[in-house]
Each structure stands twice: as C-alpha cells, then as structure tokens.
C-alpha cells in the first residue's frame, strides 16, 4: 500500500514540471504573434478532433505495422547472424566486420533515396528503411554478447558432456540475452524514429505523412498536436522496451560494446 502511495507521489511530482511547461506554453503562445505557436488548448482540441475522426489512429496503425514488420525482419536476420559470428565463426569476423561497420555508417537518411528507387514509396520501402536502421545495433550487440561469454563456463559445460545444442541453449543464449536486449531497445527507438522520418520524406500514408500534410496545409494546432502525440508514443515504446530489458537484466550486467 505504501509503495502505491509513493508511486502516486512520484507521479504527481513528475508531472508538475510538465504541467508548468504547458502553462508556460499557453502564456507564451498568447504573447508571440498569431500563427507561429498555437496554444495547447487549441492543440488538444485539434488532436481530439483528429482522434475522433479515426484518421489519427488509422495512420498510427499503419506506421506501427511498418515498424513491426521491419523490426521483426531485422531481428530474424541479425540475431542468428550475430550468434554465428560471435561464437562459431569468430575467424570470419576480420573479413566481415569492417564491411559491416562501413554499412553501419551508411546513414539511413542517405539510403532512403536509393531504397525509393528500388521499392517506390510504399510499405516495402519503409520496411526496408526500418530494417536497415535496426539491423546494425542488433547485430553488433548480439555479437558483443555472444563473444563475451565466459570461456570457463563453456569449458565446464563441455567437460560435462554438453552437446553443441545444449551449449548454445543453456550457456551461450542466457549469457548473451541482456546484451541482445540492449540492442533491441536501441533498435526499437531508432525504428520508430526512422519510420516517422521516412514517412515525412516521402509517403502517402502513415503518421509522418499525416504530420507533414498538416504542415503543408498550415494547420498549426494539428501539427503541434501530432508532435506531442509522436513524442508520447515514442516515450511509451521506450518505457516498454526498458521494462523488457530490465526483466532480462536481473541476473547479469551487460558488457559494453566498444
């Protein structure tokens, strides 16, 4: 019970600066010339109108669907590949790692036009962009986790006659999980960010498109509203994956990749 009240207290304390910010915004918006900053009351009104007209949630669903597809694809590719490179094929690392590092440096913003040439501006291009942006943090963190497995543990398991499969499932995988989840958390943030950006650059549906169309139509309150909405969504995504990571981090501190 007391922990509940301390949670409530924490929540109230935490929301004070945010409420202050909104008051400041409301007052500030009244002082600057009209048509630059819209006051939060109007912002929430237009956001409410967008939400009740289902347009907002439909675009959100489209964007999140794209993120989900790209993210799932990237997990399916990066985690097995990271394990292979981090454990059984460490010798291949010297051959592959500089190439991967180079690819990692290839900015997703720079590659969006190239993906557009191949895939158009539809869902396929968005999925490819998310895939590309999330692949590298996932891959590198999985590799770091798999490589950092304590060698004496592997030897101990081997001397007890563990097969390769057992070795992998019972030693290497649990040991590498915290690092994988660091990668997953990073990638989740990045994927949501990139989907909005790539939809702003070129799309005909999705949350980013909704934002940019509000901007071009000069619907200022709606535009600020969508910024708020996107921010809250990305905080929620962060919170979710942070919780998930904590769940897997209980027993071991992750090693840092360098």
């Amino acid at each position: 019970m007391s922990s509940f009240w301390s949670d409530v207290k924490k929540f109230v304390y935490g929301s004070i600066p945010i409420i202050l910010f909104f008051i400041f915004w409301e007052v500030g918006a009244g002082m600057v010339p009209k048509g630059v900053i819209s006051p939060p009351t109007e912002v929430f009104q237009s956001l409410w109108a967008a939400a009740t007209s289902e347009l907002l949630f439909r675009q959100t669903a489209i964007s999140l669907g794209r993120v989900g597809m790209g993210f799932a694809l990237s997990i399916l590719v990066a985690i097995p590949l990271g394990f292979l490179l981090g454990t059984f094929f460490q010798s291949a690392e010297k051959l592959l790692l500089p190439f991967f590092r180079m690819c990692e440096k290839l900015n997703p913003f720079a590659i969006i036009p190239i993906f557009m040439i191949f895939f158009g501006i539809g869902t396929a291009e968005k999925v490819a962009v998310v895939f590309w942006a999330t692949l590298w943090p996932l891959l590198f963190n999985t590799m770091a986790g798999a490589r950092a497995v304590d060698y004496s543990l592997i030897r101990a398991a081997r001397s007890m006659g563990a097969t390769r499969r057992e070795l992998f499932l019972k030693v290497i995988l649990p040991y590498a999980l915290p690092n994988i989840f660091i990668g997953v958390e990073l990638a989740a943030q990045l994927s949501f960010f990139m989907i909005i950006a790539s939809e702003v650059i070129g799309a005909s549906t999705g949350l980013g498109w909704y934002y940019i169309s509000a901007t071009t139509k000069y619907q200022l309150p709606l535009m600020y509203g969508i910024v708020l909405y996107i921010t809250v969504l990305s905080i929620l995504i962060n919170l979710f994956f942070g919780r998930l990571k904590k769940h897997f981090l209980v027993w071991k501190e992750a090693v840092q990749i360098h």
Partner: protein
Amino acid sequence: MLKALKSIHSALTSYYLIFLLILIWELAPRLGWVNAVFVPPFSRVVKVGADLGVGNILLYIAISLKRVFVGFFIATLLALPLGFILAGALPWLARFIRPFTVFLSQIPPYILFPIFVIIIGIGEGGIYTVIFWSSFWPILFTSIAGISQVDPLLVRAAKAMNASRIEIFFKVVLPAAFPAIMTGMRSGLTMSFFMLIGAESMGADKGLGWLIHNAQSMGFIERIYLGALIVAAVGALLNFVLDFLEESIVDWKEAPEEQTV
C-alpha cells in the same frame, strides 16, 4: 616472397568484401543483371564524382561538418555546465525536472524542423537547431549520470584532506566522470551527424544532405549513390577520429570492470 604475400593478405583481409561488393556493383549493370539506369555501375558513379570536382565535394563536406561542429559545440557549451550544476549542486532539481527533460529529449528532432522553420525562419538556423537538439540531450544526461556516479568515498577522502570545493570538482569529480562524459559527447556527435543529413535534405542549399536530396529531385541517380558513398566515408572517418581522440584523451581509466569470480 611468400611472406610478403601473406602480410599483404592479412593487411587486406578486412577489405576483401568491400572490393567484392564494388566488383559486383560494377559488373551487375554491365552484364545486364540489373537495370543500369537504376543501378549505375561503380565506375560511372566515380566519374560523376570527378565531373562534379573534388573541390566541390570537399566544399560540401566542409559545409556539412561545419554545421555539425557548430551545433555540437553550442550544445556542449550549454549542456556540460548545466549537467555539472544540476548533478553537483542541485540534485533534487535534477530529479524534479527529469520527467520533463526526458519528455523534451524524446521529441524527434527531425520533425521539429518545420516548427523551427516557422519560428526561426528558413536557412541555417533550423539546421543548427536540429543538430543542437540532437546532441544536447545525450550530453546532458550522461554528464548528470557521470557526475552522480562518482565514488563518494573519493570525494570524502578529498574533503578529509581539506580540498576546497573547486579543487574537489576539478581534481576528483571531473576526472572520475570524464569517461562517461566522453561517451555522451561521442554519442551526441554521432547523432548530430546522423540528423544532419536528414535536416539538410529538408531545407538547405549546400551540403551533403542537399547533394543527395537535390540529386533525387533532379533525377541524377549517379549522384544519389555518390552522396551515399561520401556520407558513409565521412561517417567512418569521423568515427575513426573519435576513436583516436578517445584513446589519447581518456588514458587513465583503462582498467576494466572488476572481475568477480
């Protein structure tokens, strides 16, 4: 002779895959595996780069890097002292405004760009603000975390030896927090370079992001590839320089985490 070959081989191992990719990139359009209009062979991309002129390319790189460094510099100049003050002198305030700072830091800088354009106007200001925004928060958060994680035993020891507050700050707290701060600055700089390309493609008249964006809208497909190559190369170079700097500046805290067996 064999030895020399071997040493060349081991020096080049890391680059074989890149060479292979370039070779495939060159051959695939020429042999008709992919459409040469959409995937121009590597040599043509290089030729377009040569036509554009090395001087022009260097100029674009310089303009982009200048934007990154100016925005990053201003962010560092504001974030570091603020982080020190919040973590060192007013930890209760840091805790109090934390939800708010987290909220602000989560606003994607990229979609702030149109808002900055409305408020500040089109031009350099918006780009600088985007870069400022994307490097300010990582630096602030890591400097707060770095300072508050300094071993209190060290601070107490220094106090017991009658060190003044300023001495404690400069001789104990700052060196102890320095590696963490460096990590934050580094991720801030990486993030700014990442954001720069996006910001420049939204509204700029020079620079690397503009090069790609302009090529896209004009249909110069070779130039899109050229721009992507240059961006990757500059990013890799920046990373290399940062690695080098980090190694040469943070030389004292090399000891790894304690081994608990």
